[in-house]
């Protein structure tokens, strides 16, 4: 019984400690984001890595999500003879929820892992110390470009995901399930601009989570290659958990 409380206590203390340090990193990142000089080249490099190179996987994720949504909802809707409403279902689901969340989860795995591995490797090979020794803030040089890229690009990638999701849903609904194309598209009119915008606000928030959590895990990596590997795994899991938890609170707040 004592051991249980001991480990519970230790776990809680570690969680609070990590939360505190991540919050400090977030505040320091915001400070350096608005403090000159601004290094455009670093930021553009990260935008290419995070944004453009993630596009193919985001398009595929979006498309298949929309397609499977139609497949799963068609038969229930058909039984009630309201299959023409599937357009609205796909539209609402993609823009409000599935587009932002699934895009963020995919990016947590693809980009978050890469960020943690890169910064973690730099940490264990003293490259982060070398930055400090040369009077360069590791947060400004490493975190800020990634933070800006993730925060700015996740909404843009989500737009692509939403579009391909709705398009994929349209193709399956109309060509496979026989829904009338005009009915599918007409139902998209029920979408409010706020549905799309709030979905993009969520995406931006998820981008911040991915950047801060993965950079933090990189900075505290230790123990060589094994340590970097462990940090990468924890980073992806933690980012995904935080995305799902914050999704609930953001949905309550925004919708």
């Amino acid at each position, binding site marked *: 019984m004592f051991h249980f409380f001991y480990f519970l206590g230790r776990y809680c203390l570690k969680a609070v400690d990590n939360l505190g340090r991540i919050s400090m990193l977030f505040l320091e990142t915001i400070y350096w984001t608005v403090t000159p000089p601004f290094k455009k080249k670093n930021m553009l490099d990260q935008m290419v890595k995070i944004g453009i190179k993630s596009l193919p996987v985001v398009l595929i994720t979006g498309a298949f999500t929309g397609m499977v949504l139609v497949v799963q909802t068609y038969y229930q809707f058909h039984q009630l003879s309201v299959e023409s409403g599937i357009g609205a279902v796909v539209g609402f689901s993609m823009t409000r929820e599935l587009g932002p969340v699934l895009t963020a989860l995919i990016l947590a795995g693809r980009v978050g892992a890469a960020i943690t591995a890169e910064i973690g490797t730099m940490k264990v*090979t*003293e490259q982060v110390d*070398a930055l400090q*020794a*040369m*009077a*360069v*803030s590791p947060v400004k040089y490493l975190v800020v470009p990634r933070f800006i890229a993730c925060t700015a690009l996740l909404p843009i990638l989500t737009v692509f995901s939403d579009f391909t999701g709705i398009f994929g849903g349209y193709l399956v609904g109309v060509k496979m399930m026989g829904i009338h194309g005009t009915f599918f598209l007409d139902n998209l009119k029920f979408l409010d601009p706020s549905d799309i915008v709030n979905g993009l606000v969520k995406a931006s928030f998820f981008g911040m989570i991915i950047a801060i959590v993965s950079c933090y895990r990189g900075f505290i990596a230790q123990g060589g290659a094994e340590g970097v590997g462990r940090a990468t795994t924890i980073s992806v899991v933690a980012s995904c958990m935080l995305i799902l938890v914050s999704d609930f609170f953001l949905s309550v707040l925004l919708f």
Partner: protein
Amino acid sequence: MIDIRQVTKFFDKKKVLAKLDLKINKGETFVIIGRSGCGKSVLLKHIIGILKPDSGEIMIDGRNITTMSERDLNTLRLRFGMLFQGAALFDSLTVGENVAFGLIEHQSLGKEQIYTLVKEKLALVGLESIEDLMPSELSGGMKKRVGLARAIAMNPELILYDEPTTGVDPIMADAINNLILDLHSKLSVTSIAVTHDMRSAYRIADRIGMLYQGKIIEIGTPDEIKNTKNPVVRQFITGSAHGPIAGHT
């Protein structure tokens, strides 16, 4: 120039530095020797402010760096250069970009000027025409020399060397020793090196200090250290497995 007073540092429950005192004079080459894992690199990182002690002070030119803001520390660090144990070159940058890093970040020089300075610093360490190579394409000795070129790019007053000859062959080790001596006389810098390579220590040092159980237990010139009667220092410099130093740390 540097006055370390009663510095103590713990990592978890392990005491690495224990009320350590050390004074280093301007213009000298001071070598810190000690066993692997005894805290030599930790001490070096305290001097450049990457680590902060749990207690004690580190005075550099009369200013206490342990209570300085990061902004003031960064201003001080512009006067220092450090060669890390594995060179710590930035993997994603070329050799030229590594050497130019400090110049690009802190000075508003034109591309041509930076290019000229990079070539000059690489030539000082005996390297030519490798500016476009990536660190992964370099040998261990070349990495150390590029690391050194990067450390001296901003014309520092103080150069810190963390195990400069570890991991290189004896010929390259001697070449690095010659480089350190050469730079010391050409650039008139203060140098602090940590090493367990006694041959290197004797060659480059004005004074040598031994770090043992968190303290500097003896300081002397190379000749004084060679003739020391301190049994701990004697065991270390002769490389004997028998003596007061335990078999493992």
